[in-house]
């Protein structure tokens, strides 16, 4: 499972390197799963799964994101926050090359995944996306049955699956959706509520056994109860995956993330175009209690944005 077959071997999910699971909650009891331990973290991720190095993004002549440097730690949740148009979604979409789909999009600098630049010439973006999954803002189930939604990823990527039924069940259980849908797997995914659809999309992403899960404002289309369930889910998924989330909701970032990156938009003096840049990247607790940059403080205290 490498980006270029036969060249690298990359630890894949929990398969290669077993992630440290210090005091993982006893599985099987929901009320315990919902309690997650407080973490103490080193200042920088010691073993980053992904890094952005001097990342610049352009759409045609428009400079969308300026020189972003970030490191995403294994089994951590990193939140990207900031006002609208600050480039946080753009950065997120660079991390699995979804930005390739935007006509005229251009990336400078590096995005590394286990040390390899995913924008290097020989890298196949299709392979990148099987390692780095993505969940979108609006729940986007396919117009197929719940079962086929989950099985779609493994089928198209040619994953060797001995027992698809078991994989579907495992993915749905991981996404805390199994009990709600186990009797209607053959029914259309469109019959589910918005929150269930979003958990289905998470389950669908998990089914391809990625390493990193990107989430682009995954709760912005959901009500508070559905949001709480997704946040809970993120915290339990953190034990196995590296999660990077873009959110408009600062409370959400404070609740779920281990580290937070604050972006802002800087207007160009001549053109008036707003270029996104990274202001501060630190542990979430520090960003929200003791930010080092006044712009961060203004934003989180609600004075701006």
């Amino acid at each position, binding site marked *: 499972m490498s980006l270029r077959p036969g060249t690298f071997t990359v630890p894949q999910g929990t398969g290669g390197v077993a992630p440290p699971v210090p005091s993982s909650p006893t599985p099987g009891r929901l009320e315990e799963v919902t309690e997650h331990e407080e973490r103490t973290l080193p200042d920088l991720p010691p073993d980053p799964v992904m890094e952005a190095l001097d990342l610049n993004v352009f759409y045609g002549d428009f400079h969308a994101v300026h020189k972003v440097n970030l490191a995403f730690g294994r089994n951590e949740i990193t939140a990207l926050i900031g006002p609208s148009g600050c480039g946080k979604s753009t950065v997120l979409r660079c991390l*699995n090359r*979804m930005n390739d789909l935007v006509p005229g999009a251009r990336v400078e600098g590096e995005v590394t995944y286990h040390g390899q630049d995913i924008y290097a010439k020989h890298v196949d973006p*299709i392979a990148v996306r099987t390692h780095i999954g993505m969940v*979108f803002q609006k729940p986007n189930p*396919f117009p197929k049955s719940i079962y086929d939604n989950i099985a779609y*990823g493994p089928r*198209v990527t040619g994953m060797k699956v001995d027992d698809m039924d078991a994989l579907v069940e495992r993915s749905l259980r991981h996404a805390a959706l199994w009990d709600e849908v186990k009797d209607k797997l053959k029914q259309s995914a469109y019959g589910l509520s918005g929150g269930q659809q979003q958990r289905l999309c998470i389950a669908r992403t998990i089914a391809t056994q990625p390493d990193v899960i990107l989430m682009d404002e995954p709760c912005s289309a959901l009500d508070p109860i559905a949001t709480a369930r997704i946040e809970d889910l993120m915290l339990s998924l953190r034990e196995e995956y590296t999660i990077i989330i873009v959110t408009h909701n600062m409370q959400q970032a404070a609740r779920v993330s281990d580290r937070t990156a604050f972006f802002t938009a800087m207007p160009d003096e001549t053109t008036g175009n707003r270029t996104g840049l990274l202001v501060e990247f630190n542990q979430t607790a520090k960003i929200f209690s003791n930010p080092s940059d006044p712009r961060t403080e203004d934003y989180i205290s609600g004075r701006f944005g």
Partner: protein
Amino acid sequence: MSAAYATAARETVTLSAGRSRDKDLRSLVFLGALWFSLLFGILVLLVLILTTAVKGAPRFDMALLTDYSSQLFPERTGFRAGILGSVWVMLATAALAVPLGIAAALHLEEFADGQKWWNRFIEVNLQNLAAVPSIVYGLLAVAFVELVGIRERGLVISGAIALALLILPVIIITTREAVRAVPREIREGSLALGATQWQTTWRQTLPAAVPGIATGTILGLSRAIGEAAPLLMIGTATAIRFDPNGLMSQFTALPLQIYSSTSQSQEALQVAASAAIIVLLVMILALNGLAIYIRNKFQRTW
């Protein structure tokens, strides 16, 4: 309390003061003109259909459908050859135009780089092609058939080529619209799971667009079934007294047979032509009805 009451009263007065500007003279005149245009169109159509139906009424019998044309017994003449010929040509046209049209539309919509000048050139000319007079497609088909070395005139395959060329732009344009209506989120969801562009198109976009494609295709075919000019150009005969039995068979089509019957002097043939016009209309309406049925049955709201 009293202040709030006063405000409410004042607002009520403002709202009910004067008459609605939707009812002033200019609006009414405009509305009347719209209604007149609508009714005029419908009335002309109704009168046309009714007079044709009344004139053809004596010939609404089975012989009209099952017999060959006959000059000797004009009151028993039938349009069997034309109906079967039209069905054959339609099937062959669909077999030629549908795969080509869908493939072209998918390429333009999902794969082609819209920034490149040649793709934009093709797009503009698709619109132009849809507006080309149908007889020109007949000429094109004649040239094409000669080129591949078919000397015989008026074959099913030649007619199908002419009509397929005629409806190809229609199919491409409607397919593109159907494909474009599939939300981007579906494609992104598929691509984000590691599917290739091709898998995404084949497994997500195309199935989701099928109702729209089917509707557009059927409407294209119902346009083609009424065409006479391109078939005349390829040398389709009007007096045929056998059933077409393959792509390389000679044939005649219903519109052509109607045309030749109306130009005969015998009154009975003219009556039969009127009845055949109603048959053709029924065939077209059935196709359009099928298109509407498919659209309503499989319509999806995203």
